[in-house]
């Protein structure tokens, strides 16, 4: 009995610890678990879509529900699964790679996570309150502004709240990477994952405000009677498309760039070679980030922008293929002459190269503005962006998780199960999406609830659905691997992969202060340099001293929870004024927490030198 109580207390204490934590490693866990859950929800929605499209004239789900499914699948996968899992990786790895004890603003880091989570929860509550948003993840006006019910309102509020979290997270990583690098870690010595996280954070800083503005205009149109997108009142519905894609296109690079970085680190480690053309890789990343802002209208070739605008955006879009090609060749030549070890992480990486190349090639085909008049809004596009996002981002997430799992959780994911999860997913992925290019050209538009007998689309759709089940199987095996590893596998060493960068110089998992002494970085791949010179660890840059640490805080949770409550108030005040009470309560909680944070000095605490020596010796 008493034992059970103690366990309960232990669990409660652990939950409280995670609710108040400002430690980047624990925030990484939070991001990963919640992003993973949303990934499963989004995957379930995808399976329902594929079952509906399995055969012609199917009515497994109704047309209205189908539109909710596709909207929530896209929105969930992009905003609530891919983004947070990427933030999980950035949180887990970037501070360690640059030799920092935490991010620049630990409190904001926590706030960013809770905002994302409550925004995502708010969006998903819509399933239970009369219908999810149904205007596609792109949410084009006027379909969205005139959509009945509150689904779109949930989309607007949910994305606004979680978008604020993402923006905060992005700024935090910018400042971290600029200010918190260890002595000797110059820009051109940063590992590629840190570089790409840096560029991604810059993209977040410039891209998300466009979404924020668009969502605010949408919010006022739907809830407060404005007419920004209402053509009958002098508005313009095309402005939403521009705002959405000015955000939406960089978002694609926000998602893929960090994983390009992860692939670079993984290829380099498992080929036992320095990254080929490091400075070209950095330059290509910067160029992709820059060009990413100049191409948004290629999503709008059929809107009627005219041949001049279409031609300009076509050519600028094609230009992005050049730096991307540079990256592909640099990866190939990193492996050239290397000693390639086909671990699970490397397997996902190796699979990524041809998959993403196909996605890039269909991307160039889509860039051809006139030809896009045929591709646009068909399954060709669906095939294309799944090749990029699954073949690039999801493969990358799996690779990065296998690679950094020991650093995040102290155990190496079972390699055999890793291979077992890979094959069904990989085969299923190509089965599902390759055929969709042809379905599109054969006349199947995107977001179609059904198609008819006699359109020659049945076989292709059946193949696609079968493939989806293979992908689901692969995902389940990966999940099994996570559980299996947690129970059966032994603790991992500090450096299980013969790594090259700083994160492998400290124990797996790292102590909460990361580095006992700030490391001295003497070149690219600092740990590799030390190993080649016969040293065991990194040379410290400072004598052992007290370490200043931040205190945990429940305030980020409360601020975000306040906005969650206020979100309901904003959504339902249209029906009844009494809901403004919820707005007041929620905003009161948020603003009150902010006031508390401002007025109360929290200087953190120090770990004393003596404690560090004891602990350090205890470990070794």
């Amino acid at each position, binding site marked *: 009995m008493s034992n059970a109580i103690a366990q309960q207390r232990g669990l409660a204490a652990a939950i409280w610890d995670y609710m108040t934590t400002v430690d980047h490693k624990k925030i990484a866990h939070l991001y990963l678990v919640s992003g993973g859950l949303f990934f499963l929800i989004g995957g379930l929605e995808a399976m329902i879509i594929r079952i509906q499209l399995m055969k012609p004239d199917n009515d497994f789900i109704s047309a209205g529900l189908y539109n909710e499914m596709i909207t929530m699948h896209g929105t969930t996968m992009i905003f609530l699964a891919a983004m947070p899992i990427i933030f999980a990786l950035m949180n887990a790895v970037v501070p360690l790679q640059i030799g920092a004890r935490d991010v620049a603003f630990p409190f904001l880091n926590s706030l960013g996570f809770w905002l994302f989570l409550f925004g995502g929860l708010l969006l998903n509550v819509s399933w239970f309150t009369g219908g999810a948003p149904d205007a596609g993840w792109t949410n084009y006006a006027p379909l969205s502004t005139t959509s009945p019910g509150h689904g779109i309102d949930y989309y607007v509020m949910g994305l606004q709240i979680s978008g604020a979290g993402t923006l905060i997270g992005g700024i935090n990583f910018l400042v971290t990477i600029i200010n918190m690098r260890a002595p000797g870690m110059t820009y051109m010595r940063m590992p590629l994952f840190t570089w790409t996280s840096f560029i991604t954070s810059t993209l977040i800083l410039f891209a998300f405000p466009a979404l924020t503005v668009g969502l605010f205009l949408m919010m006022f149109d739907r809830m407060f009677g404005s007419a920004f997108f209402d053509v009958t009142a002098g508005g313009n519905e095309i402005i939403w498309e521009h705002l959405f894609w000015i955000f939406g296109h960089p978002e694609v690079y926000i998602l893929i760039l960090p994983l390009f970085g992860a692939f670079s680190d993984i290829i380099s480690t498992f080929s036992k070679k*320095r990254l080929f053309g490091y400075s070209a890789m950095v330059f290509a990343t910067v160029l992709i980030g820059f060009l990413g802002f100049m191409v948004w209208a290629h999503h709008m070739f059929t809107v009627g922008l005219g041949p001049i605008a279409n031609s300009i955006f076509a050519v600028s879009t094609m230009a992005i293929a050049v730096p991307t090609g540079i990256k592909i060749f640099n990866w190939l030549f990193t492996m050239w002459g290397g000693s390639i070890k086909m671990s699970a992480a490397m397997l996902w990486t190796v699979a990524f190269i041809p998959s993403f190349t196909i996605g890039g090639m269909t991307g160039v085909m889509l860039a051809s503005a*006139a030809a896009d008049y045929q591709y646009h809004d068909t399954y060709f596009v669906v095939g294309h962006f799944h090749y990029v996002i699954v073949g690039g981002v999801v493969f990358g997430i799996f690779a990065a998780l296998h690679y950094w799992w020991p650093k995040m959780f102290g155990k190496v994911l079972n390699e055999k199960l890793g291979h077992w999860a890979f094959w069904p997913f990989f085969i299923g992925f190509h089965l599902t999406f390759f055929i969709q290019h042809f379905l599109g050209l054969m006349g199947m538009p995107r977001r179609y609830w059904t198609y008819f007998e006699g359109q020659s689309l049945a076989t292709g759709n059946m193949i696609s659905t079968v493939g989806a089940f293979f992908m689901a199987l692969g995902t389940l095996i990966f999940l099994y691997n996570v559980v299996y590893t947690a129970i059966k596998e032994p603790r991992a060493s500090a450096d299980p992969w013969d790594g090259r960068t700083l994160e492998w110089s400290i124990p797996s998992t790292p102590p909460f202060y990361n580095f006992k002494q700030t490391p001295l970085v003497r070149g690219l791949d600092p740990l590799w340099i030390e190993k080649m010179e016969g040293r065991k660890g990194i040379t410290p840059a400072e004598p052992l001293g007290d370490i200043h640490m931040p205190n945990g805080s429940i305030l980020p949770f409360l601020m975000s929870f306040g906005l969650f409550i206020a979100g309901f108030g904003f959504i339902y005040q249209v029906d009844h004024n009494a809901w403004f009470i919820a707005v007041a309560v929620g905003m009161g909680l948020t603003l009150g927490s902010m006031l508390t944070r401002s007025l109360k000095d929290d200087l953190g605490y120090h770990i004393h030198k003596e404690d560090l020596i004891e602990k350090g010796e205890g470990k070794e």
Partner: protein
Amino acid sequence: MIGLMGKLRPVFIFSVLALFLAGCGEENLSALKPKGYGAELLLDLMMISIAIMLFVFVIVMAIYTFVLIRYRRKKGEEDFIPKQTEGNKSLEIIWTVIPILLLLILAVPTVQATFDLADEQPRSEDGSITIEVTGNQYWWHFNYPDQEVSTSQDLYIPTGERVYLDMTSSDVIHSFWVPSIAGKMDTNPGGNENTMYLEAYEEGVYWGHCAELCGPSHSLMDFRVVAVSSEEYDQWISDMQNIDAEATPETASAQDGKAAFENSCMGCHAIGNSPAGVGPNLSNFGNRTKIAGILDYNKENLVDWIMNPDEIKPGNKMQGYNVSEEEAQQIADYLMQLDHTEVTPETVSNSSGEE
């Protein structure tokens, strides 16, 4: 065919054959079986891009396969430390410059085709045909302003000439797509009017889709383009101009149907020349290819559609108009005898892809 693309065309014949076997898609629906100028131009453009991309893909895959086989770590090599190369200037220049050249090769015909398809030159002065297209949830209205003819759902055009479309929407954004004749173009509500043209090579009945998510029945917003010879087209126009909306039907049931129609339906549905109304224009309904764009054309389906519109096309605006089963039967009889023209989809020589 113009310029570079014309000259390069024979080069790509083989890739065409290799890639798209005869079974790829349905006649009159697939973009891979072009039956009109736009679709053919775009298929050629696709072929150029596919050829370039395949070239790149083969090179990447050749290096990839070689590297993975040759440099895989073998037993006993665990301690081998490869040479740590930093990079190679000339290699890096090669794989920067060659892609730029390849993209330029693609960019030139892309820009040419983009401007070609944006042609809105001649207009009515020299007798070319302009049709106003209006997208509605979930049907299409076609108005021939110079001829003072309107119809819905089935768009009649002559073969062998460019027919210009002025496109708009009455509610949300739709997109007009006839894959086998031309690419697609959005129809926007408000002032953003778009134009495109259709030029069909062969007579036929071509499948059209809405390609922009427009609500629950987005996937049910199909229409047809009926391409006929120019003589038949002139005939069709003159028949449509001479519709007598007041004509009394022959059978008693249809006469009752006319009365019921005037009572219950005419507020939204016009017969004869009219602007885009709340519901589709029903001129020439006796010669429609489909009911509501999707159902096979027979009386049973028509009655079903009149009685249960929301079950067939969820979210459409024809709801709550309760007519009795008997009235629906009569209305169906009335509508199905509205064959105002001699030119029908059946008279089209090549309607193979239809059923």
